[in-house]
């Protein structure tokens, strides 16, 4: 991973940085009690004061410092109750795509893409999953073909969160069909606004709502060859870097930062329709019987233990007793617990959770939330993939016998795509 060390031989100490940051924040950064800045304006304000991309090199728009400095920055913000970027878009763009480009992009690509990304002008997303692929991301079949001085892209991606409001997508695609699957992949930057041949559709959720998940169709989309990130055939390595940063981001230890909104949660604090606090209310409901009370207690206990587990793994990552893959343990625990929590709400609410007054469709009920609750156990790597990671990569148990590892990809059984 590239730190800021190459920029400056004599780097500002973390303590000096902290002092400078506090002073600047106190005078220039709005408090959480002020009217909220929109995410672009906030990112721009940080960028203009060299606080965006703190661990990115200065030549690409960063502050040329380290992740320790970045942690100090966010600690100060939490301490002084200042507004900092806290959205999922920031986490993905600055926390995952930025460092991936930094690691794999050419010098030219970095100059071209990173400053606009750190300034908040361009929001980046990942284009990894496919309708056909499910958990098998390396089985991508979106086709990248070289045609003289340009690339042509054909195929479809799916489950891309926020593609409808983003500027660029980093797309994993297949550039060579005659080599085994992990070796024929490339990654390319795809502009998402007004690109000829590109159609972006929001996926309608089981609830009936159009959600943030999108599907993209590429029909002879023409891209300049400079948009390639990494070399042809190295796409899997690029995707792995992206996934590593995703796990790190989930553990709040990476280039992105979720800010106080999602970290350090009090498990008993208010947290929407079906969180622990709603369960507490249900527990105090007069008709809650022993079976329901036990489920509610389990949900509460999981929420407390889950928070403690994440905190301990984060500490372990810091001191080196844990490696990056341990984020999967937290992800698995949290996904299972959240799903059980929603399931418990069905038990606690009975008919009140699935029937309402009025002739109109409503979405704010336990039953409808339940319909989408498997999203949490699938998105970001399904429970099954996390269990594979935990058992194979953390514990070192043998991998599944693979039927597609050493054969040319065009001979691999691929079955039906999801929508057919």
């Amino acid at each position: 991973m590239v730190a800021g060390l190459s920029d400056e031989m004599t780097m500002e100490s973390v303590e000096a940085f902290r002092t400078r940051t506090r002073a600047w924040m106190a005078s220039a950064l709005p408090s959480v009690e002020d009217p909220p800045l929109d995410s672009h304006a906030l990112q721009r304000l940080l960028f203009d004061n060299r606080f965006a991309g703190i661990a990115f090199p200065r030549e690409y728009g960063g502050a040329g410092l380290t992740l320790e400095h970045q942690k100090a920055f966010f600690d100060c913000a939490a301490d002084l109750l200042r507004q900092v970027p806290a959205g999922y878009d920031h986490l993905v763009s600055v926390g995952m795509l930025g460092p991936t480009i930094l690691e794999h992009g050419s010098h030219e690509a970095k100059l071209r893409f990173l400053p606009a990304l750190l300034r908040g002008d361009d929001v980046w997303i990942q284009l990894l999953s496919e309708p056909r692929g499910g958990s098998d991301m390396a089985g991508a079949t979106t086709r990248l073909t070289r045609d003289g001085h340009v690339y042509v892209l054909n195929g479809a991606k799916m489950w891309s969160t926020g593609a409808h409001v983003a500027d660029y997508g980093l797309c994993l695609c297949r550039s060579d069909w005659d080599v085994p699957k992990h070796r024929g992949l490339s990654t390319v930057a795809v502009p998402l606004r007004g690109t000829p041949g590109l159609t972006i559709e929001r996926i309608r959720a089981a609830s009936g709502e159009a959600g943030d998940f999108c599907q993209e169709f590429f029909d002879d989309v023409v891209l300049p060859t400079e948009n390639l990130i990494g070399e042809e055939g190295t796409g899997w390595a690029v995707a792995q870097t992206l996934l590593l940063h995703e796990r790190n981001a989930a553990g709040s230890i990476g280039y992105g930062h979720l800010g106080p909104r999602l970290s350090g949660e009090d498990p008993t604090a208010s947290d929407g329709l079906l969180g622990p606090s709603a369960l507490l209310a249900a527990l105090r409901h007069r008709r809650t019987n022993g079976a329901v009370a036990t489920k509610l207690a389990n949900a509460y206990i999981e929420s407390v233990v889950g928070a403690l587990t994440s905190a301990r793994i984060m500490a372990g990552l810091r001191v080196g007793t844990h490696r990056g893959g341990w984020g999967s343990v937290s992800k698995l625990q949290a996904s299972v617990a959240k799903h059980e929590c929603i399931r418990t709400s069905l038990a606690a609410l009975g008919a009140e959770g699935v029937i309402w007054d009025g002739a109109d469709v409503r979405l704010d009920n336990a039953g409808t939330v339940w319909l989408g609750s498997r999203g949490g156990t699938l998105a970001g790597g399904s429970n099954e993939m996390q269990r594979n990671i935990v058992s194979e990569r953390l514990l070192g148990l043998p991998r599944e016998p693979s039927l597609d590892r050493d054969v040319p990809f065009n001979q691999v059984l691929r079955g039906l795509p999801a929508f057919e």
Partner: protein
Amino acid sequence: MNVELSQEQEAFRNTTRRFLEARVPLLVVRQLYESHDGFERSWWREAAELGWTSLFGPEVGGGGISPIPTRDAVIVAEEMGRMVAPGPFLPVSVVAAALLWEGTATQRADLLPALASGDSIASWALAEPGDVWDPASFMTRAVLDGDIMVLTGTKAYVEAATTSDHFLVTARTDDGLTQALVAANADGVTVTPGRSIDMTRRFGLVTFDGTRVPTSAVLGTVAGAGPAVERQVQLAIALQCAELVGVAQRTLEFTLEYGSSRHAFGRPIVSFQALKHRIADMTVWLEGSKAVTDALAQAIDDEDPESLHLARIAKAYVGEHCPDVVDDCVQITGGIGVTWEHDIHLYNRRATLDRALYGTPEDHKEQVITWLRG
């Protein structure tokens, strides 16, 4: 799901299945989502012609067309589950059964033929707001005033409330439960439409504001309806469990089809052992659900006193495990399983609704505990 169906029952099942597949395929179910009532009355008359509404009647004074009406009715309920079909089969069946079991010759003659033909629809107004299914906690009162019974209170989660012509109302009198048949258009009856997460099942609040009916509308005896209500609940649970079995069985079937054609890592996804083992467990749950539902249906037909406990056990088991089958099938299906496009949410909706109606599995488990404590 009975393994020993008679030839008549086999024929009845086949007719039912073909009718549902032809007339209310899933595309039609999706269209009905937009509709106010969730089903067409003309379609319901066709369904009635197949015999769905004649199982518990309608011969005056007779014992119904079928000698084993519950075991016949669960066949329809299971098929409806397989197709997440619309229509007020459950409430009409319960009201017809109540008439058959408790009604006078006049009461039967007045209503059963119209229910059987599908010209009339009746529903049971049992539960009360706040997820109250236990009659001991009902607030709706039935007060005798000479030859008149006066009903006051609000009933909730009444299926097909806005399309029903009659309600069977279960209310408290001072010394017990009383049931009465009330026309939906009677004075003092207000129906407020409601909706559920199901694509086609509609519910509503029915309020009785001093509604006056003649005592000839009372089903059974005043203050003596407790056992009848209990038996009606058992029937409702049997039909609901059969529907849940149909829902879960069909969901597992199409999930296995889908998972056999869908590949990851060069293999069909259902070839992964972790999924196969969960699917084996689901098969155990499904077999158990079928067995306990069969046993309950038979116990109701046989007037076996065990039916009381079997109903609780059935709802506790089937109401928990069949929705769990659907839930894990969503996981196996993957991301597409949480989209509108994929049909599995139609099944998840029905399963989740059935889980809640007539008491949650947890409620019934608690009753099992109370009973076992002795």
